[in-house]
């Protein structure tokens, strides 16, 4: 049983954030995942991001499906409500929760089996709806909890622990999301906290569906030689195509970057995602070029990571529904029920 890997960043671990909470206040139950599981590192990054963003834990709702990855919401934000639903159906739960209470800060955690096999339809449609949700796909290429079958993200030719080669095409969740019109698409690696934390922060700030696919090796069933989702393989083939830094609203922006190399994307709440374009020809606000770029790396056997695409200004679900600004779930009954008189009037129609 592994305890939470504590964040490795460099300030005393009991430092308080703007609302007076330490990172401990953002932790949850002790993880029951295997020692070294990538998912635990992602949990640590999530804790760090919420802490840095000064978010009140209880304003958050944590949602998941079923799988080792889907267990992780129990391991962070103990003061937030959690909903460990059924396999592959977290997106619909999140959609409903967001519809009822748009003030909730929604974070969904899923796995590649949960998201790309049984849950593929719901994931695609949540993207289409642009539900205001941070969706983290903890991608290890296998079904961990059921002991290591290939998932739909397993690459063709990747070798299972039993030694079998996968023959099927892999579903690349990032390309899929781009094809479906996702408004925030990122990919990262559980072993790269420095990259992951700002991405999570940006995702939480993004208004709409923020999709982050995180390669998260399964040490027990898919971290061996021949696996393309192992720590070793990912370290070798990961290429950060755009390095991003998240700057919360209140901090004013100091432009100490060599001109040209930097691009700021302003999120709807005024905060800024600062993108240092590691690669010249790359533009993370151009969907088609982003797509082509990722494919180009893919063809080279590389895994492009970073904030791959963002379009901060598209209407999220509740805006499309033209819903009131307050949550609908606790509207006073008087404002919901037309009452006797109206019923009288109304019934003239039915005579």
């Amino acid at each position, binding site marked *: 049983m592994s305890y939470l890997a504590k964040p490795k960043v460099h300030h005393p671990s009991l430092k308080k954030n703007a609302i007076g909470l330490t990172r401990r206040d953002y932790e949850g139950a002790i993880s029951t995942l295997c020692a070294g599981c990538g998912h635990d590192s992602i949990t640590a990054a999530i804790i760090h991001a919420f802490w840095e963003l000064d978010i009140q834990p209880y304003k958050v709702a944590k949602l998941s499906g079923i799988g080792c990855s889907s267990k992780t919401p129990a391991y962070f934000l103990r003061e937030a409500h959690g909903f460990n639903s059924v396999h592959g159906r977290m997106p619909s739960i999140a959609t409903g*929760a967001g*519809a*009822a209470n748009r003030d909730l800060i929604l974070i969904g955690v899923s796995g590649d089996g949960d998201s790309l096999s049984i849950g593929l339809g719901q994931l695609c449609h949540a993207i289409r709806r642009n539900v205001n949700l941070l969706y983290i796909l903890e991608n290890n290429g296998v079904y961990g909890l059921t002991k290591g079958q290939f998932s739909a993200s397993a690459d063709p030719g990747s070798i299972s622990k039993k030694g079998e080669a996968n023959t099927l095409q892999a579903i690349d969740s990032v390309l899929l999301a781009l094809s479906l019109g996702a408004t925030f698409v990122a990919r990262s690696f559980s072993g790269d906290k420095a990259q992951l934390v700002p991405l999570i922060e940006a995702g939480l700030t993004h208004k709409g569906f923020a999709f982050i696919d995180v390669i998260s090796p399964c040490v027990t069933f898919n971290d061996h030689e021949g696996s393309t989702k192992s720590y070793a393989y990912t370290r070798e083939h990961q290429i950060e195509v755009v390095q991003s830094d998240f700057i919360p609203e209140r901090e004013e922006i100091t432009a100490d970057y060599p001109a040209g190399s930097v691009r700021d994307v302003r999120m709807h709440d005024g905060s800024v995602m600062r993108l240092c374009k590691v690669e010249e020809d790359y533009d993370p606000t151009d969907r088609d070029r982003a797509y082509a770029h990722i494919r180009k790396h893919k063809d080279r056997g590389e895994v492009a990571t970073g904030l791959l695409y963002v379009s901060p200004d598209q209407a999220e679900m509740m805006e499309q*529904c033209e819903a009131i600004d307050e949550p609908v779930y606790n509207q006073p009954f008087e404002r919901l*029920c037309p009452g006797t008189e109206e*019923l009288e009037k109304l019934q003239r129609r039915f005579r």
Partner: protein
Amino acid sequence: MTSQVNDFAFKIATANGTGSASANSLIMQTIFRMGIPVTGKNLFPSNIQGLPTWYEIRVSKDGYTARTPVFDLVVAMNAATYEKDVHEVRSGGWLLYDSTWPLDERLLRDDVTYIGVPFAELCAGAFKGVRERILMKNIAYSGALAALLGMDTEVIRALTKEKFSKKPALLDSNDRAIDLGFKYVKDNFDCPLPIRLERMDETKDCILIDGNTSSALGCLYAGATVAAWYPITPSTSLMDAFKSFCQRYRHDAETGKNRYVILQAEDELAAIGMVIGASWAGARSFTSTAGPGISLMSEFIGLAYYAEVPAVLFDVQRTGPSTGMPTRTQQCDLMLCAYASHGDTKHICLYPSDPREAFEFAPKAFDLAERFQTPVMVLTDLDIGMNDWMIPKLSWDDGYRPDRGKVLTAEELEAGRSFFRYMDVDGDGIPYRTLPGVHPRGAYFTRGSGHNARGGYTEDADEYQEVMDRIARKTESARKAVPAPIVQRRPGAKAGLITVGGCHAACVEAGDMLAKEGIPLDYMRVRGFPFGDEVKEFIESHEKLYVVEQNRDAQLRSLLMLDVAAPGTKLESILYYAGFPMSAHHVVAGVRGVKEKVLA
């Protein structure tokens, strides 16, 4: 039948998508406004255009609203079903047909009076364009019927005026079409027929409405704010109605914002997931579907049951199994809805018998779902949901306030009130719950996996069982909370009639018929599951009980045996499941049949 004044039935045969619907509702409304009790049953195909469709209208001065399979008059406007339709006329009845073309000799019956009206020819003369001629042909037969049955032409005029107030051109052509039919009949036949209409005063406190519309209205009045659905016949019009009601009553004029959210999901699994998510977050939320949807929702229904999340589902039943006959009615999901999902599960079900109860049971369903923190199923059917029923006006109590159940507020939690999600604090089997985003002390982890009374994950035998046993107690206590059965006793009755939902109309009528025959029967209609004590008592107080329902496998009988230990030996099934609404004739024949069987 003795007198035929305000007491007969007729049937109109046309083709789908030829605009006969408006003609038929015109006829219905006219009779209704003449103060005469009337019901209509629309028998339409699972198709958009061209296949045969029938509309049955029953006029009953005694106020019987069940379907009758005996037709005094048939209007045969569809060549494709001509032969079938001629056979449907009762001996001594009438057939109204389009005499533009000569009638096939082989279709002539000497026990039927044929009334030929050259509708096509008349319309060809009076209207331009194929489409308009087809439409007007169908309006024209309502004119002919007006003459034959003695409808009040003033009422008709008034109705067309209202209907086409904004479309003068249409108003004109409709009126002309009606006159065509009316005149021709007046000039060529002596009217009205022995089956005819005479003004009454029986409908002034009534409305004509379908159950999907009234269910939607009930959800609006109950304060439902989130609805998620996936289109499926015959439930689609429920959500359409809810949407239009919301647009009218939940749209904030100044801000232009909506006080509701309706989500057309990608399928039924997503729809129920959205409902559960919304209910979990505190909204009154519901979905509407039909049998296939309930099957697909099964896994999620089990989650809501075990994790104790409220949810309201309307199952507008259609003929199963599988896709079955989507435009025919049945009561075939009774067992599924009562026990949906794997593992030990049992669900609260409500069984409205008509659009009025559908309206009344909607708020009840939300109250029960939130009080007992569990899914509640409202089972109607295609007949209740999509046909126009004459019912007493809907009424509402402005004193009604939703029962949101045991939800701890931020204040209570702030005041340090202890909270363990699945603990039986009050001894009623119902735990307290909290909503997300309200207070740190309210936080807990909702899961469909094993959990203990404190809401923690568990694989411990005793902890698991403690929660399961409490949930069983909770569901038990729902017996007292669901609507009690309707019970009517008749002097001298030894046996009883038991039924559910839309069979009510047929059973009431059959009860009267049987009583006249000297077979008085007590009557009980169950309205909620699990069944209350009254149900048990009624069964115990009779040696023989006829259970009337619309499915093949006697599902209501099964529920009675399982839930209140009704001895099967007592329960004689009367089943009709061919897809049309139940009629009194089926019930009477059934009772007689059983009696004979017993004697033999």
